[in-house]
């Protein structure tokens, strides 16, 4: 037992255990997702998160300790965002041909996201802090936190809502798109990226590179659109 204790102390201090846990949990999620023929409800991020949280709670590990190891995976989000330039370039002809439609759709989508979130939250009695933190939920986390803080929201609450929105969009987005009968991959990708940033983009890439490229583009442009639109819309409301 003491020996096991020693090993445990060693492992919990090294990033290796938490890094391995993250990869293994994701591999399991990806396996279930693939077995389920990429059914969006079997979102691999959600499965991995549930497994990791369960393990952390059972072993009494704090998030800070976990992140010491997991940060190596987290860090790659930056380079991966930069790498979105490659699929975007591959699809550039299609993007250029529909540039005006892309910009108009993202602006409309961005305004829809902000106005619907604020007004539903308001009607259901959400507090002012909650409303501000809620509004930029469709935007990639670093920008959303900045926007929320600027208007007096809670950046940490915003970060939580951004991730939930991402997973939610990746899970229900494909059903919504099938329901309204949109088959065009460019339009499907654009909608996923506008509503659910990187997690929606990851889902879009799994089904079509064209959708992924438009999704990545929408993620970037919606960050810009929300940063500009949200202060204006908030000014109109309150």
């Amino acid at each position, binding site marked *: 037992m003491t020996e096991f204790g020693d090993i445990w102390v060693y492992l919990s201090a090294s990033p290796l255990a938490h890094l391995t846990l993250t990869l293994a949990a994701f591999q399991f999620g*990806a396996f279930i997702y693939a077995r389920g023929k990429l059914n969006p409800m079997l979102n691999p991020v959600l499965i991995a998160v549930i497994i990791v949280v369960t393990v952390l709670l059972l072993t009494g590990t704090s998030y800070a300790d976990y992140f010491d190891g997991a940060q190596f995976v987290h860090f790659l989000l930056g380079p991966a965002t930069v790498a979105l330039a490659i699929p975007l370039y591959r699809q550039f002809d299609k993007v250029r041909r529909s540039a005006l439609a892309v910009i108009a759709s993202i602006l409309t989508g961005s305004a829809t996201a902000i106005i619907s979130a604020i007004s539903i*939250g308001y009607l259901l009695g959400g507090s002012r802090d909650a409303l501000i933190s809620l509004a930029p939920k469709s935007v990639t*986390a670093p920008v959303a936190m900045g926007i929320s803080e600027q208007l007096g929201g809670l950046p940490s609450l915003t970060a939580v809502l951004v991730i939930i929105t991402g997973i939610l969009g990746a899970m229900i987005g494909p059903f919504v798109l099938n329901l309204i009968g949109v088959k065009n991959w*460019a339009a499907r990708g654009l909608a996923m990226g506008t509503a659910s940033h990187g997690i929606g983009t990851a889902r879009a890439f799994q089904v079509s590179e064209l959708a992924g490229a438009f999704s990545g583009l929408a993620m970037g442009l919606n960050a810009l659109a929300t940063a500009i639109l949200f202060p204006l819309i908030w000014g109109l409301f309150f």
Partner: protein
Amino acid sequence: MYISANCESLDLGPVKRFVAGMLNYLTLILGCQLAGELAVRAAGVSVPGPVLGMVLLFCFLLARGSIPKHLATTADGLLNHLSLLFVPAGVGVMLHFRLIGNDWLPIGIALIISTVLTIAVTALMMSWLSKGAAGND
């Protein structure tokens, strides 16, 4: 892409191929991100550094006119596992659930309805506008 000519005499084949391959482009990707982060700090705009880095890399590709083979390999390697990269942040969410606290019902309903609406409106707008434009795809 290139390595100085005096390496030719030594048997640096594998090293050269590695440097000329993935490593060069990994450096290029990190360089674009770093330049993006610096530009964001300097200009104080509310766009994340990596998004600006994406724009820089895209301009590089436009100027070059094609995608170097190993850059494509490096980028596809990163993007094939994009979902994985969200797991650490996702785990943070579950432990901060108490932040949502008393507002969980309005927040939950607002999240679901707003996400559905945003997806539907954006997709319908895009497919409507691209049909009207030229009828292409």
